[in-house]
């Protein structure tokens, strides 16, 4: 095995293992912490693929903001009591069906994928000379302008929704 393959093998194995750790921990705070380690591993995988910008964003947004809010919720709710209640346990057959369907569709997709596609327009050399940030910015604002604007509109709706929800009703 070459060095890149060895690296990839490490990440593949550890990411799978970490995901298992996230869902199997009894203590929800520990689960969230394993998720933090998982996110760091995913960021490293992005780095390994020469996507520095995505790696940094993965850490800043997912580990730095979203997961902290997760941690907040998990710390403030008393989950140790609630997890023994029946109404939080009925959903596992639904989860099993969903996960099984996902696994089957993933297998079908994996069969169709060609392992080494032709190198695209953005090669590693181009990424290194022009810079990750520059290329992503250009592509987002020219080729994918419409999806980008739609995404920002969806986020705006979410922001307004949060403001409306938290605003006190004035009599």
């Amino acid at each position, binding site marked *: 095995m070459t060095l890149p393959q060895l690296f990839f093998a490490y990440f593949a194995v550890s990411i799978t293992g970490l995901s298992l750790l996230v869902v199997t921990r009894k203590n929800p*705070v520990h689960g969230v912490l394993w998720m933090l380690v998982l996110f760091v591993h995913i960021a490293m995988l992005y780095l390994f693929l020469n996507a520095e910008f995505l790696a940094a964003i993965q850490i800043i947004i997912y*580990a730095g903001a979203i997961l*902290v809010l997760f941690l*907040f919720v998990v710390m403030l709710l008393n989950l140790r009591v609630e997890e023994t209640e029946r109404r939080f346990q009925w959903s596992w057959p639904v989860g099993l069906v969903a996960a099984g369907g996902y696994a089957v569709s993933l297998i079908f997709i994996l069969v169709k994928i060609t392992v080494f596609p032709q190198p695209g327009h953005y090669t590693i050399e181009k990424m290194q000379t022009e810079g*990750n940030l520059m290329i992503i910015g250009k592509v987002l604002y020219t080729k994918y302008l419409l999806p980008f604007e739609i995404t920002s509109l969806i986020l705006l709706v979410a922001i307004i929704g949060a403001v409306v929800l938290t605003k006190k009703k004035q009599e």
Partner: protein
Amino acid sequence: MDTAILIFKIVMVVSVVLLHVAYVVYFERKVIGHMQARLGPMRVGWHGLLQPIADFIKLFFKEDIIPFSADKPIFFIAPVIGVIAALGSFAVIPLWDGFIIADINIGILFILALSSVGAYSIILAGWASNSKYSFLGGLRSSAQVISYEIAMGLSIVGVIMQSGSASLSDIVNAQADGPFIFTQFIGFFVFLMSALAETNRVPFDMPEAETELVAGYATEYSGMRFGLFFMAEYAGMFVMSSLAAICFFGGWRGPDFWIFSHVPGIFWFLLKVYAVIFFYFWIRATLPRYRYDQLMSLGWKLFIPLALANIVITALWKLL
């Protein structure tokens, strides 16, 4: 051979930075002492110069007390995360022309990412201690850090737009005609204030407000573990001051005339960094602590809109 040089660089930077961190504490005690008409540390060595070393030895040999009901693995890991996040940031900071451990083209984002990971050390310390004071300190701190991170990130966007790069060396090189402080003063103001909140300094030191929370998240920590938190805080302050010096004051660049052009870059860099650090101490000796709701409304209702306005102004100015 390259690897050996790299390791040598890392060891050098880490040891020099740790020495600076120790003496920043001394500097702070001296400055605040004189501002309050005291002398500050005087006993250990000439004018108390050996005080940091004495403090270090004391912290290192103190008994390490772990609360009985603490979540031990997380209790152990929390201070280490803080120190790693703070020291890791020095990998992308250019100390003088050409001296940088890793010249990556997303340097600023790297520092922001590490500072958001650093917030975990405080939240986890607060939770793992299993004490009300620590927990409240941890919660306050995480809310504060998340809020001010947005303002800080947005305040630097102006600098990135003006220099056209997120690499710290490129930003310094873009300031050859003059530092960005003149064009980015709104960004600088927002950055400086957010950096105060981000490093939990007075007047935003809510997470460790002594009068309300004993010592906040660090209440249950003792000995060297407490020392690590202390180190992480001051190293974080050093990182933020370096970022201010690089993004707004032109980093290692000094005035380019007469004998000033022969002064090495590291001198100018350290001068700027210590000027910012001195400003931190000055504020600490001057201002009282904010109330928590004031802190939040200041962050969300003043700094974030100001930073957004700064981005719009910079964009318009770039267009013209």
